[in-house]
């Protein structure tokens, strides 16, 4: 069941689905710490990037779900962003059919298999405006994690038009920018995806990609391309609430996510402002320089409306 959020009041924290190929023990330890120590209400579980990774995680994630729920967290199962093989399609449909748990739909296949039961619309569903959000609400969407390209002004437009819809914002982590059915990481190693040797496990925050001139730019995580920079919201809680945001998503990275979630807790409860949040997150060793441009309607690689983060 979903944790309730009082309108205009509380701001909840959520841990987004783990995007990277971490070893099973690392995953288990990670979620155990989140369950025991992180002040978050929701944890998204599930492999969303590559269907080849999923079998290795199935048991670990099932145990993680039990532990998280035992600790009072709401578990939401996330579906593949780009299901293609019959197995990936079946797994997504199975998650969608489990109406005891909320799901986060990674693509429209999951919406189709789920509706009219309630679901969370993931950030990759291409909801850019209020009428599109209203369509998803009509079909059962109860929470929308905004597309990472959306400026806060557009999120506010959606919130205003869809009063019952909870709005979640991608608040921390490398931004998921693109997906391919071809694995760039395997390609870089001279391997085919079908015999990829799971090379993505070498890079717990994604493989850094720089330009021809050596400027940091992107990160590759198997089929997914992420920003090199690390998104961090740089607007105050009041402005987020005024835009209708009630949940902040923290995307898992290899730094201490428990500390990250405690800092965000301080932020949403008003003990620190966004400037101090940025300073303290910066000192925890984020995977890249802090960025926030999309929120302000400018290039995602920028910090605020300033220059490109380096």
């Amino acid at each position: 069941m979903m944790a309730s959020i009082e309108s205009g009041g509380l701001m909840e924290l959520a841990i987004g689905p783990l995007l990277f190929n971490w070893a099973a023990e690392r995953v288990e330890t990670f979620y155990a710490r989140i369950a025991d120590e992180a002040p978050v209400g929701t944890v998204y579980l599930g492999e969303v990037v590559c269907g080849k990774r999923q079998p290795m995680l199935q048991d670990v994630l099932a145990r993680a779900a039990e532990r998280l729920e035992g600790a009072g967290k709401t578990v939401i199962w996330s579906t593949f962003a780009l299901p293609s093989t019959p197995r990936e399609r079946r797994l997504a449909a199975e998650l969608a059919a489990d109406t005891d748990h909320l799901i986060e739909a990674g693509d429209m296949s999951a919406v189709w298999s789920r509706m009219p039961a309630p679901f969370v619309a993931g950030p990759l569903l291409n909801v850019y405006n209020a009428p599109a959000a209203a369509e998803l609400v009509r079909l059962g969407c109860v929470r929308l994690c905004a597309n990472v390209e959306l400026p806060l002004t557009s999120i506010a437009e959606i919130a205003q038009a869809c009063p019952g819809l909870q709005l979640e914002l991608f608040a921390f982590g490398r931004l998921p920018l693109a997906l391919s059915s071809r694995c760039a990481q395997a390609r870089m190693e001279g391997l085919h995806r079908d015999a990829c040797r799971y090379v993505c496990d070498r890079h717990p925050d994604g493989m850094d990609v720089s330009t021809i001139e050596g400027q940091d730019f992107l990160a590759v995580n198997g089929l997914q391309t992420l920003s090199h920079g690390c998104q961090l919201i740089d607007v105050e809680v009041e402005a987020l609430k005024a835009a209708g945001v009630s949940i902040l998503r923290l995307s898992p990275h290899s730094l201490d996510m428990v500390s990250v979630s405690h800092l965000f807790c301080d932020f949403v409860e008003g003990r620190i402002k966004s400037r101090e949040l940025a300073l303290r997150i910066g000192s925890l060793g984020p995977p890249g320089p802090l960025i926030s441009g999309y929120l302000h309607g400018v290039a995602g690689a920028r910090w605020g409306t300033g220059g490109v983060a380096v």
Partner: protein
Amino acid sequence: MSDMIFPVLELVCPAGSPAMLKAAIEAGADSVYCGFRDETNARNFPGLNFSPEELRAATDWAHERGTRVLLALNTFARADATDLWRASADAAAEARVDAVIAADLAVLSHMSANHPDTRLHLSVQAAAGTPEAIAFYAREYGVKRVVLPRVLSVEEIRSLTSEITVETEAFVYGGLCVMAEGRCALSSYASGRSPNLSGVCSPPEAVSFSDDHGERTTRLSGFAIDRLPAGEVGGYPTLCKGRFRGGGFREAAYLFEDPVSLNAMSLLAGLARAGVTAVKIEGRQRGRAYVARVTAAFRAAIDAIGRGESPGPYEALLGDLAEGARETTGAYGKRWR
């Protein structure tokens, strides 16, 4: 090749301008697709596209010649400007186009509610590649045809068409998105303009070139995305086809894809057998002569297949046109899986 009769493939060709529309139709297109001269379509480049008046006139002209006109309304409406997309949908219906090609739920729901008699095609920008996703758009919005993501093999398409009730349209020639279409924010990450919203990938105003030591460096909003010996011609500078460094490799490499261009002429018969209804040529941003030549070659190839002959003689006709001068059959052969 066997003597079976193949279903006729509908040839869908780009019309970046009224002149290109005429050229494509005269060269043998069964259908042409075009867009309005604004951010409501995914080829929003300067000097391209149609005004509502031009669309009306062009549609009448095409209909007199038995050719269909498909209107691409395939970007996602900006939250603060949904009226523009709504007005464009209304103008397309008013011009009596044969179908509107859309991806945004806002556009699809507006069309199905207000213009139920105008046929809806699902744009490749919706990246619907599973029977479930396609069923969603078919049932909720009455979509009659889906333009397939450029990630499926012929065998996967055959399996897909057997599981869906709507027509399919497959790209067979031109530029290729490396990433899942409509789900790529690389260009906006660097430039601030979202292709999904504005219809422009690597917006021209953000592209710059600099020459140094006999090499030309291409930049997007300052990020160097490729470097070629001066005089060597590259394709349009998109990030997914740029060269980067990563994973301990010291030399810059085409990280996502080599600069190749799709030519699936050799697979036309296989696509027809796989249940594909229509085949599509990419390239509204290309010139009129280019479109006329590609259209004529594919017309000849499809007609040959219809007669039970090989399209072989026509396959070499277009080699010199490919962007970056190399061709691929793309995902259809799926050598990279």
